[in-house]
């Protein structure tokens, strides 16, 4: 479905953005999931669960978080027209998402550095959890609104349509909200699966195994719901998703592998499979709407910045990657050693 001969600089940058988005989903997304499990910590090992979550997120959440900044910055540098449209139509959900991000990040830090008394800890814990839940749902609904063409439609009606029609209903509709819940479910599933590997004792590991399996079934249900709704709410998207059968098959396969390996307590394998599953879902969406940034009107080519900017961006990304990738490896390496992993 993609003609290789038409690929060029704009597509290369789009691919880089997609990779950064993928990295954000796998790292930052799991941190959001951790927040959900923090809220739902229960049973005799409640405190231990919370400690494990805080301990796993602590050293890395800021770095994880920066992936989102990279995505945004590359998007507005390389596809300024698309970014401008998103900023206008999705003003409200993006603002909500930002507030969620601020709350979550600061709450987490205040909780770890602030006063140790129980009430303050509870308050910050709550802010952290709420931020962790609201943000992915809104993020997902933004994706849903872009994917089903609602953003593009609303953009044409800026200045003529009602406030509700332009700024609210594109993202506050059944399909985007289901996508939002689906995103939250995926992140929670991802986090629980990661935590089975991070946990140091078997009881704790089992807690998160159970949670991962429950979440997996919820995710399946939400995926089914999204597909059903998409038939009427996003027919174009639904038709395009089906056009990449190999990718969909791989997604299903990795999802099944994740569940089976979790069941068999093969946690490391489960982690890989879950990460693959989430990544494939992301790429499934991106490839389905290719070559559009905001389907069905604004394509990668339509919205791309001049070539000189794109070339410089590629150089910049190259330099950035040369510095960042070894640094990230070092960061994760330094903390894995301590937990006794290899």
């Amino acid at each position: 479905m993609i003609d290789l001969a038409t690929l060029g600089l704009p597509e290369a940058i789009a691919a880089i953005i997609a990779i950064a988005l993928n990295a954000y989903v796998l790292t930052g997304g799991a941190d959001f999931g951790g927040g959900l499990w923090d809220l739902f910590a229960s049973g005799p090992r409640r405190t231990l669960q919370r400690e494990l979550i805080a301990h796993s997120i602590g050293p890395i959440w800021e770095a994880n978080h920066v992936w989102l900044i990279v995505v945004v910055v590359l998007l507005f540098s390389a596809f300024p027209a698309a970014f401008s449209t998103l900023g206008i139509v999705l003003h409200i959900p993006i603002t909500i998402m930002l507030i969620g991000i601020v709350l979550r990040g600061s709450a987490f830090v205040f909780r770890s550095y602030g006063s140790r008394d129980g009430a303050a800890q509870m308050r910050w814990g709550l802010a952290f959890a709420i931020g962790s839940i609201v943000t992915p749902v809104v993020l997902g609904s933004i994706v849903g609104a872009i994917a089903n063409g609602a953003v593009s439609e609303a953009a044409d009606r800026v200045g003529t349509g009602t406030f509700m029609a332009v700024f609210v209903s594109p993202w506050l509709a059944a399909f985007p909200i289901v996508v939002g819940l689906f995103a939250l479910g995926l992140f929670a599933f991802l986090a629980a699966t990661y935590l089975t590997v991070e946990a140091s004792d078997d009881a704790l590991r089992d807690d998160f195994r159970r949670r991962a399996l429950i979440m997996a079934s919820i995710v399946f249900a939400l995926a089914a719901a999204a597909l059903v709704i998409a038939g009427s709410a996003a027919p174009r998207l639904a038709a395009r998703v089906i056009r990449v059968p190999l990718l969909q098959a791989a997604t299903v396969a990795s999802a099944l592998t994740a569940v089976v390996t979790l069941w068999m307590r093969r946690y490391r394998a489960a982690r890989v499979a879950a990460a693959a599953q989430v990544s494939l879902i992301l790429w499934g969406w991106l490839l389905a709407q290719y070559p559009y940034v905001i389907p069905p009107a604004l394509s990668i080519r339509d919205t791309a910045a001049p070539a000189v900017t794109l070339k410089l961006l590629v150089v910049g990304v190259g330099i950035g990657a040369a510095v960042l990738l070894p640094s990230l490896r070092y960061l994760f390496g330094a903390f894995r050693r301590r937990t006794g992993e290899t």
Partner: protein
Amino acid sequence: MALSLGFHIVFAEIGIAMPVLMVLAEWRWRRTGDHVYYQLAKRWAKGTAVLFAVGAVSGTVLSFELGLLWPEFMRVAGPIIGIPFSLEGFAFFTEAIFLGVYLYGWDRITPRAHLLAGLIVAASGAASAIFVVMVNAWMNTPAGLVISAGRITHIDPIAGMFNPSTGQQVLHMLLAAYAATGLAVGGVHAAMLLRRPGSAFHRRALTVALIIGAPAALFQPISGDISARTVAKWQPIKLAALEGQFETETGAPLKIGGVPDPTAAVTRYAIEIPRGLSLLAFHDPNAEVRGLTAFPRDQWPPVAAVHIAFQIMIATGSAMALVSAWAAVVALRRRDIVQSRWWLRALAVITPFGFIATEAGWTVTEVGRQPWVISGMLRTADAVTPMPGLAVPLALFALLYLGLGAIVAVLIRSLIRETA
């Protein structure tokens, strides 16, 4: 937007300078084995972590807000300022990674690696500041694009990055960060020393903070002079506004204080130093300074706000330079400055001055550029989003930032208390 930036700039400053303090303290500890320095490095690292996190989230908000509030600005400027913003993103990423290594790595990596991680945090912090200020400088003096018949026909992002304002603005901002943070930290410890003279911890803390803050505060007036001359050359309206200069004059006087009245086009109650302005702005006592009346009325910025902010910046900055000079003179005579209670009091008083000066300076450069968001190219009113009801998100963010600021203040206070 201005609100978010005003909030972010303080955290960014601390984020630039605090790692330098922390690394310096750790280096002293590794060199001398003096345990007090170790405690100091640990304490400062904790403060850095809190502020960095808040700086990180407020920075994320900013990167989105540009598009949310000024979509038209991003459409026009994105291809040029996107490059420095992208580089900033990477520098910030590096900072986040190595701050993680530094904070959680005290006993997990070798001393040398740990110190190096701290250095990288400090260096990448400075690098992010450079890239971001490049963008702001470009908004003041846009370069690197050709417009014909209302359309941008050719762009050169590199020329955009190194526009006429970049050099001086970067210098001024970096010095501001080191001066403000160094003297603020010094001021806090000076207050502690007044209460508990002879505390080795506060003594050493004060010394390290001064090593960073005092030289920066002393050089800042020189950098300010360079800035003023650049503004005089490239943004004459801004110069006229910040000086409250309405009439075009040769041998223009320098006005100190005073209240500009735009309707009557006069600045009242100012102390005037004859030929001062011409001398400072052009290094020639007889140079002609163009006044606001030489420009169309609809291109004037809010004169009173800009002029008063400028006076505040000069006043607080001068106080900082004086206290630093006092310390330098005593140090040169090989006396112990920390013995002087009067000096400690002075330093304690000017603790917040650096941040006040920064906010004032920010007001000067931003409000002084109005009504333009990109000087001479795009008016702020044309850049703003078509979404109605903008007051709501503004109020929301104001509330959020107020809350965050209060909490950070409480946290930092409790951090300081612990050491007392």
